[in-house]
C-alpha cells in the first residue's frame, strides 16, 4: 500500500480539526457560522493557515475547503450530518451537527489532543469561538464580520441589505449585552 501523500495527510488532519471544532459545542451550527469561526481561528493561529484559504465571496470570507469537507468528508465518514438550507433560507448555507458516532469519535480525539501541548490553546480557542459566535443570528454575525473585515465586502450579495439593517441589528446586539456603547456607535456609523 502506498504511504499517504502530503496532501492526503493534510486533508486528514484538517478533517480532524473540523471534528474538534464541531464537537466544541453540543449544538448544530450553520455553515455560515462555522465558516466565520474557522476564519477567526485562521487569523488567530498560524497552523490553521496551512489547511485553508479564505476569499471574498457572496457572504463574506469563504473557504471552498470547509464547504467540501462538511459536505463530503473523505476520512471521517458519518461523523457529522449536513442539513441543506430550507428553500427560503439564502444565508445560512445549511447546518451541520455531529452524529452519535461523531460525538464518540470527538471524545477520543479531544482526549488525545489534550495530551499535545501545542493543541491545548487551539482546543480552548475552538470552544471560545463557538461560545461567542454561535449565539448570534446570521444577520448579526454578518454585520460584525463585514464591519471588522471590510476587505471581505467585495463580491458580497448581502452586504447592502445587512448594511441597511445595521441600526436594528446593532440595537439587538446591544440589548442582548453582546456589544457595548462604543462598539454600537462604530457599527451604526455609515462606513
Amino acid at each position, binding site marked *: 500500500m502506498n504511504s499517504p501523500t502530503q496532501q492526503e495527510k493534510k486533508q486528514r488532519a484538517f478533517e480532524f480539526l473540523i471534528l474538534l471544532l464541531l464537537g466544541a459545542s453540543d449544538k448544530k451550527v450553520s455553515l455560515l457560522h462555522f465558516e466565520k469561526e474557522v476564519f477567526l481561528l485562521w487569523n488567530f493561529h498560524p497552523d490553521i493557515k496551512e489547511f485553508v484559504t479564505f476569499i471574498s465571496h457572496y457572504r463574506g470570507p469563504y473557504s471552498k475547503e470547509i464547504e467540501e469537507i462538511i459536505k463530503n468528508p473523505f476520512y471521517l465518514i458519518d461523523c457529522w450530518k449536513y442539513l441543506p438550507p430550507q428553500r427560503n433560507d439564502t444565508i445560512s448555507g445549511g447546518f451541520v451537527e455531529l452524529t452519535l458516532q461523531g460525538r464518540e469519535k470527538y471524545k477520543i480525539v479531544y482526549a488525545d489532543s489534550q495530551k499535545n501541548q501545542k493543541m491545548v*490553546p487551539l482546543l480552548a480557542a475552538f470552544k471560545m469561538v463557538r*461560545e461567542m459566535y454561535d449565539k448570534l443570528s446570521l444577520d448579526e454575525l454578518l454585520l460584525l464580520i463585514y464591519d471588522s473585515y471590510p476587505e471581505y465586502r467585495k463580491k458580497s450579495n448581502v452586504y447592502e441589505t445587512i448594511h441597511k439593517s445595521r441600526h436594528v441589528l446593532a440595537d439587538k446586539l446591544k440589548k442582548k*449585552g453582546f456589544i457595548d456603547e462604543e462598539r454600537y456607535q462604530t457599527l451604526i456609523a455609515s462606513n
Partner: protein
Amino acid sequence: MNKNIVADSTFYSCCFCDIRRSDILFHFLSAYSFHLGHRIFNELPSSLSGNQAFLKAVTEQNFDYYQLIKPFFGRDPKHMKDGEYEAIGLGYLLNSQGILHILVLDDRRPRNFVKNHFPSLKTKVKGTVGLVQSSCCDDKLLPQKLALEFLEAILNNINDGEKERPCSIDRTIIGAILIPAITYIRNYHAEQ
C-alpha cells in the same frame, strides 16, 4: 503546585508604579503562577518587563487572542494592542483546562465582556482589590499586614492626588470597593 492567575497589566503597574511596592508584587509572584503574553508585557514599564527576576517568575504564552474577539470590539487599531483581551484569552485557556484560579481585570469594558459572553469565567473575575482580599482571607497566601499596606497605599495615592486612577480605581469607587475591602480584611483577622 501554585494556583494560576492571569492579570491584566493594571495589576502589575499598580504594584510596581502606582504604589511602588515591588516587594508585594514579588510576594504574589512567588505565591501564585502568573500567566501573561507579549501584549501585557508591552504595557508594562520597561524596568519591570526587563527585570530578570520578574521574567523568571512569570509564565509567558503568546497567542493573538484579539483576533478571536475582534468582531465584538471592531478594527480600531487602538484596541489591537490591548493587554486586557489577551488576559481574557489566557484566562479562558486556563479555565477550559480547569486550572484558572483568578482572572484579574480592573477595567469595566473587559469585565463586562466576560460577564456577557463567558458565564463559566464570570465567577473567577476579580479586580486588583478583590485579588488582594481573596489572597489574604480565602487563600491565606498574603499576610494581613501586606494586604492592608497595599490597599491603604492605593487609598493614600488617590487622596494625595498623586495618580488619578491607580489600579483603575477613582474616587467614585473608593467607598464601594476599597474601604469595604480594608474593613473586611481587618475584621476577618480580628475574628480569627
